[in-house]
């Protein structure tokens, strides 16, 4: 169980998280939804300890990640993979070097040929075969995101955190990435935490959904519970996405 208790964070006068509680069951897909600028990315960064909370805890196996320092924190972080919202690729490295980077750092047992093979397979999974030699600046936003996805998952982490994995992708690629996430989760029995604005695919792949609003988790439950929720904020958020589509023109 990944447990977040009473998380509070202020940036100057901006109170982003106001005592947020959330339980993330292991081995499942949890999707976090919420309006833009409500602090979803900030929450994700707290989970991997990139941001220190003003108050509150992030507990993994009952241990507070923020109490860990140095080597212990490094070891715990090995269990996580994080896809940044804007991919955060190393822009001085080629796509190949980016994806091979975690392997080179932590899997020195792999031979060069194995690394090449693994990178190739990862790129195929994200539907970008053969772009190894390109540099991040030569890629589109959606391509960068998928390279980031390949890099974040290349070590098969136990807990994968995705910050809007499919934002900016076309419907077909979105579906492929969704399937990849589900597949990864099933194959490795991994835990996935996804931030998403895509209600359709959220309902399709989530085991649990949590809604962030005004610095707190205001609702959480299964997709069905969510659809049937009477909570005003949830209703307001879901309604536009689930309305029948009105076609422009006649």
């Amino acid at each position, binding site marked *: 169980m990944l447990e977040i208790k009473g998380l509070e964070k202020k940036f100057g006068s901006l109170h982003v998280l106001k005592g947020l509680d959330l339980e993330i069951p292991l081995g499942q897909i949890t999707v976090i939804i919420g309006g833009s600028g409500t602090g979803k990315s900030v929450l994700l960064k707290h989970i991997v300890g990139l941001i220190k909370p003003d108050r509150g805890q992030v507990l993994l196996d009952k241990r507070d990640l923020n109490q860990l320092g140095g080597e212990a924190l*490094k070891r715990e*972080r*090995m269990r996580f*993979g*994080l896809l940044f919202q804007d991919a*955060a*690729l190393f822009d001085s490295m080629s796509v190949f070097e980016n994806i091979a980077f*975690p392997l080179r*750092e*932590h899997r020195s047992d792999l031979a060069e040929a194995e690394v090449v093979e693994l990178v190739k397979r990862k790129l195929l999974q994200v539907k970008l075969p053969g772009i190894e030699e390109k540099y991040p600046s030569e890629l589109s936003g959606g391509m960068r995101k998928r390279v980031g996805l390949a890099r974040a998952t290349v070590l098969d982490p136990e807990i994968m955190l995705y910050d809007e994995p499919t934002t900016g992708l076309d419907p077909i690629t979105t579906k492929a990435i969704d399937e990849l996430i589900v597949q990864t989760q099933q194959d490795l029995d991994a835990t996935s935490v996804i931030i998403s604005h895509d209600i359709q695919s959220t309902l399709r792949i989530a085991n649990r959904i949590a809604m962030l609003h005004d610095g707190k988790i205001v609702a959480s439950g299964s997709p069905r519970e969510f659809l049937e929720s009477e909570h005003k904020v949830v209703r307001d958020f879901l309604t536009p996405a689930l309305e029948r589509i009105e076609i422009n023109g006649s």
Partner: protein
Amino acid sequence: MITAIARSWQLVLSFVSELGSFLTLFYEALVACFRPPFRWKQFLKQLEFIGVHSSFIIILTGLFTGAVLALQSGKAFRLFNAEAVTGSVVALSLMRELSPVMTGLMVAARCGSAMAAEIGTMNVTQQVDALKVMSVDPVSYLISPRVLATTIMMPLLSIVFTVTGMIGSYIVAIGILGINDAIYFDKIDQYVEMQDVWDGLIKATCFGVIVAVVGCQRGFQARGGAEGVGRATTQAVVYASVSILVSDYFLTAFMY
């Protein structure tokens, strides 16, 4: 009055805290040097960038600094018929002062700024965060190789500066001022001691640490997009240059 005192107190406090963060980063970088994995690839890349790629500019500035020194001091010494010591005066000023200081300033402008810009950009685009998430210590990956490489390269570049400076001074002294070249070398031999060489190299080494640590620290602190990176880059050069000149005084005072 009270606000003035309060403001200067604030200034002192922020100076002390900045100094503290430079020292902390230096300590961390030093510790990371001795902890595996050693970043050979990064280290060699920095050696090349700082050492090899700076050598042209160091040769050029060294040549002209030595030449102008010889011209100025040679003309001044001629006033009391002592132009024979020109060579030794130039050699001493180069070794003890100008080579380490000028090399420090050149490397600060060329490499310290690049370090701040590179690391600063990585910082504001979350690449440093990405390193952390991948359990790679940014200090050991980014900072230690730079600090180590600069510390090693600075005394070497300073030697290059002195040698080319002496060539420049020789050309001016013999060619333009018409000093006898046997006397020129004899006086150098007479007045310059090994200790002068060592003192200069110690200074250069200290300046190497300053340039790299300041450059990296400013980059690490960079916030707020392109403007933040720009500010970090400027500050890296200004802080490093000022620190070099200030610490030069104290190092000199300490050495005699």
